[in-house]
């Protein structure tokens, strides 16, 4: 089993509700692992899920891409074998990559090894932390079954994110990846990320520079 999150880049509108809900869920309660000592003074602290916004192309033919980026829970997670203490590990039963904070020495080698820059260093505790795929939610039997999914998936208003088992060919996520040519980031680095993205279906409409005045005149 390999739990994963699939993001449809056609549906993501960059609202950052997944980013905020991740922060909210993982800072709440007595044992919330994300440090948030002074959220109103220092909003640039630790985020396990970041929405990267990029603009591509040249004016006037530009488009904007929103890329939710958290731990990819890679099949061959490069952060795991480099850890000297065994604090970073990949669960055999569901493929989620986790950190045992009690064994972490804070050497940050796993942060260098992660190709995606999704591990972050907690200066307060001196350990490295990352997305847990909300393991506390998905294994919480007291929650209704439909709520046993990561906070970022549940909060997405456009249902751009889908959670499931990538190794199960009958699952929704496996079907989406297969039918929509889902892709992982930086395949050349060999980490085999479990998290996939569904590509945008069509290119933005092309506007020739000579047509720009006509086009803008019609619109405004």
């Amino acid at each position, binding site marked *: 089993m390999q739990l994963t999150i699939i993001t449809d*880049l056609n549906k993501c509108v960059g609202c950052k509700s997944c*980013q905020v809900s991740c922060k909210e869920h993982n800072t709440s309660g007595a044992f919330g692992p994300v440090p948030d000592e002074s959220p109103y003074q220092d*909003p*640039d*602290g*630790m*985020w396990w899920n*970041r*929405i*990267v*916004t*990029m*603009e*591509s*192309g*040249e004016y006037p033919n530009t*488009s904007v*891409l929103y*890329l939710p*980026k958290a731990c990819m829970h890679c099949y061959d997670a*490069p952060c795991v*074998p*480099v*850890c*000297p*203490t*065994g*604090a970073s590990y990949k669960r055999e039963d569901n493929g989620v990559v986790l950190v045992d904070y*009690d*064994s*972490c*020495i*804070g*050497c*940050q*080698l796993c*942060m*260098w*090894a*992660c*190709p*995606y*820059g*999704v*591990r*972050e*260093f*907690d*200066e307060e505790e001196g*350990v490295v932390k990352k997305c847990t795929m909300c393991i506390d939610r998905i294994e919480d039997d007291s929650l209704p079954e439909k709520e046993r999914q990561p906070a970022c998936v549940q909060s997405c208003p456009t249902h751009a994110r889908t959670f499931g088992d990538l190794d199960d060919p009958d699952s929704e996520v496996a079907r989406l990846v297969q039918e929509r040519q889902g*892709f992982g*980031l*930086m*395949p*050349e*680095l*060999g980490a085999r990320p479990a998290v996939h*993205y569904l*590509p945008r279906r069509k*290119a933005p409409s092309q506007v020739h520079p000579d047509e720009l005045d006509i086009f803008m005149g019609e619109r405004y």
Partner: protein
Amino acid sequence: MRPTPPLLILTIGQGLAGGIVLAFAFLKSLGGLSQSTAEALVIMALGTAFIGGVASFFHMHRLAAARYVLRRLKTSWLSREALTTGLFGGSLAILAVLTIFFGRAMMVSPGYWVWTWLCVATGLLAMWVTAMLYATIPAMLSWHGALTVLAFIMVGVLSGFGLAAIVAPLNATVWVAFLVLVVGTAIVKGMHWAHFAEARGKIRASTGTGLPFSPYRLQDTGTTKPPYRTQTQVWPVLSPGLRRTVMLAAAFLLFVVPLGLTLAQLLGGPSLLRFGVAVAAIGGVFLERWLFFGDATHSSRVFLSDEMAALPRVPLNTNRRPTRVP
């Protein structure tokens, strides 16, 4: 990535100690090493190894878990580094005890000669393992490759040899060997810096985001400023001017000055010039190591800065008239 002082001191100290021990073994095998010079060299090697070892503790941010550091010997180069550096330190400490407390009688025994070269072997092994730690990280594009290993070991040996020259008056044979080492290291380091430049150009939007359109501009990294505080694997890109200045200064101190002073020594210059070699080598290795960390390109930089403009790397046909775009 951020060049933190513990990392700089740890790697430089280890290289210096390894180089000094190699110089010591070299001089011992050639003969003519006095008791006082031998003592000074082993103390110097032990001192630099000790400084590097102490710095390694500051590199860890949670010492409570340090007892688990050998758990992943099978896969982690950091576990192996802890083991091999410990072995090097231990064998060096025994060499120091033998040299200082058992004196000349011990120094002429074959066992001492064997132990000296064993120290060299553990020192080179420790340097190799440390270099492999950096060279085997595919995401750190600048470091990934055999050149990092070669450069790490050669720069370490060069700086250690240079420092050893302070207390050990070297003869012509050793100076010639040092000259060859300087030239060889300069070539390897030049290739290493070229690899760094190539790595900077590998940050491509198409693999980082799946975006087929290029170029792209980063509008938002997910927070209001780049997360360099919580993600130390990335660092603001060095300006070309700063990079060039540090590179030239490192090359001047690490290669040009030792080369010139060594040639002067060989041509009969005053032996005091060896102090210049040592000072230049130490200064050069600090700059070289700062650049090694500070100028390293991590693959996650694609999410934190715009893609660099890159011209085609194939030869262009300049004889054809440019195509007119309708």
